């Protein structure tokens, strides 16, 4: 999609953090923006911020985990602006616990937002994108934690690995219908994801806080983190060039290489076993 001016974009999890940064960058590039967030105040604040800068934007409250709310978001967006050209499935949450301390509600919460939220975006927006026949692009937010594991965040790791695999596969499938797909792999961005527990629904255990030690450790390195608007600018660049990956942390390349090396060793181990079996 060479030209973003005049196009319509929907961004989930847009009331703060990376989602807000994507909205600002898209609006500056001339897109009309539907600012969606589970927190209506956050969504309104970002939409007003865009409007006062002279951009076109509306706010829609959406819990991406709920398919009917995502369907309503699609309907609202189309009613306001017509065909949707850009969808950023960005909403995400985080829970910090050793797997032996997690219960099914912990998993349901993280998976329903981080993975099911992306799937709901696809099933509710793709039919419209296919039908309108104009240019279209989908950006899914995974994480560097969608490339290599970390301790005490098993549900986050599982959800983000799934989004990584889903998105790379989506790019292959949608090549056949000329819809672009980019995978956003943020790491250490100045966002409020540590406070994601504020939005945990009562039905799945209610609000929770990240453990202090973990939140403090992350806060300490946030100064070196990316400005979310810079992430948004890279997203716009990737949409324009239909780039497969948006990965802005070269300092973490070594961690990805380390995981690749463990996979290579696993292939070698498989060869040894096969040789012994004959």
């Amino acid at each position, binding site marked *: 999609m060479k030209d973003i001016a005049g196009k319509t974009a929907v961004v989930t999890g847009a009331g703060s953090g990376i989602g807000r940064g994507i909205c600002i960058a898209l609006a500056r590039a001339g897109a009309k923006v539907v600012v969606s967030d589970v927190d209506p105040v956050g969504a309104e604040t970002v939409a007003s911020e865009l409007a006062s800068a002279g951009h076109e934007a509306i706010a829609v409250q959406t819990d991406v985990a709920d398919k009917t709310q995502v369907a309503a978001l699609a309907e609202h967006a189309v009613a306001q602006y017509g065909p949707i050209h850009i969808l950023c499935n960005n909403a995400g949450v985080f829970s910090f616990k050793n*797997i*032996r301390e997690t219960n*099914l509600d912990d*998993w349901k919460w993280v*998976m329903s937002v981080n*993975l099911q939220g992306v*799937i*709901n975006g*696809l*099933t509710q927006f*793709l039919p419209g994108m*296919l039908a309108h026949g104009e240019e279209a692009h989908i950006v899914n937010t995974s994480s560097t934690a969608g490339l*290599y*594991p*970390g*301790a*005490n965040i098993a549900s986050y*790791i*599982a*959800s983000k*690995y*799934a*989004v990584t*695999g*889903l998105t*790379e*596969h*989506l790019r*292959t*499938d*949608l090549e*056949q*219908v000329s819809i672009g797909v980019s995978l956003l792999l943020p790491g250490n961005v100045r966002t409020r994801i540590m406070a994601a527990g504020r939005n945990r629904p009562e039905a799945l255990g209610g609000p929770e806080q990240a453990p202090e030690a973990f939140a403090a450790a992350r806060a300490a*390195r946030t100064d*070196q*983190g*990316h*400005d979310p608007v810079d992430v948004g600018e*890279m997203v716009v660049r990737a949409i324009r060039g239909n*780039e*497969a*990956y*948006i*990965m802005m*942390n070269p*300092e973490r*390349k070594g961690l*990805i*290489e380390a995981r*690749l090396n463990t*996979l*290579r060793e*696993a292939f070698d*181990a*498989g*060869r040894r*076993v*096969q040789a*012994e*079996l004959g």
Partner: protein
Amino acid sequence: MQDLAGRIAVVTGGASGIGRSLALAFAREGMHVAISDIDHAAAQAVASEVEDVGVKALAIQTDVADPSSVADLVSAVYDEFSNAHIVCNNAGVVTFKLAQDMTAVDWDWVLDVDLYGVVHGVLEFLPRMLASGEPGHFVNTASIAGVIPAVTPGIIAYTAAKHGVVGLSEAMQLDLADTEIRVSVVCPGGVATRIADSQRNRQARYGAPEKREPVPGESTPHAVMEPEQLAQHVLAAIRDERLYVFSHPDLQPPLEARYESLFSAIDAFAALDPRKDPKNS
């Protein structure tokens, strides 16, 4: 885990394919085996085969997509055997459709069985296994599609679920490193099983079984392994306490190609990095 004889193994999706071969391989090592499957008659048939080897067997009907059904599986296993040492979260299904043809209920079915089925098995068995103080080993069946995202078009939900299973397994290894519980994740390429016919077991709540249609651009696996052979790879990984079971080394080139694309994107970004002094974090 070195000594398998006399210990207890549980295999979901144990009535056919990889699950059946695992059940029989464990039996030949002298383990008693619980065979869990959504198809109870088929599970009972495998239980008889296992008993013929000379060990105890238990057939249990389980819908792994339903956490209460998995809780019932755990109760049945502990009622019968008082223990579980090797738990194979193996049940899996697949749809063959491009992303643009997938319905919401297609997604639900594949993810509920292939990903949440494994989560249910881990969350329900882990507390009992930890409490027993005995050695334990989880074997989660993923696929090479769990590490290579676009190995063929038309299996997007399967790919997403299997990536999730790989991530879950890697995270389990880290979180359980200070316990007696080990983890392996099975990532085969083509295996001679009935997975392509998994619509036969599609639960009514996910809509009627669908006929398999060819997917434009799909490729078929070129090296198909017998499930008995794969079970030997799994046994070796359990004995050596290895995380990954990669049985199809001919699939290393597409993995390398995927990482090359990713690394080029990262290298291209380095020149654009707006941060003055990025630290490893």
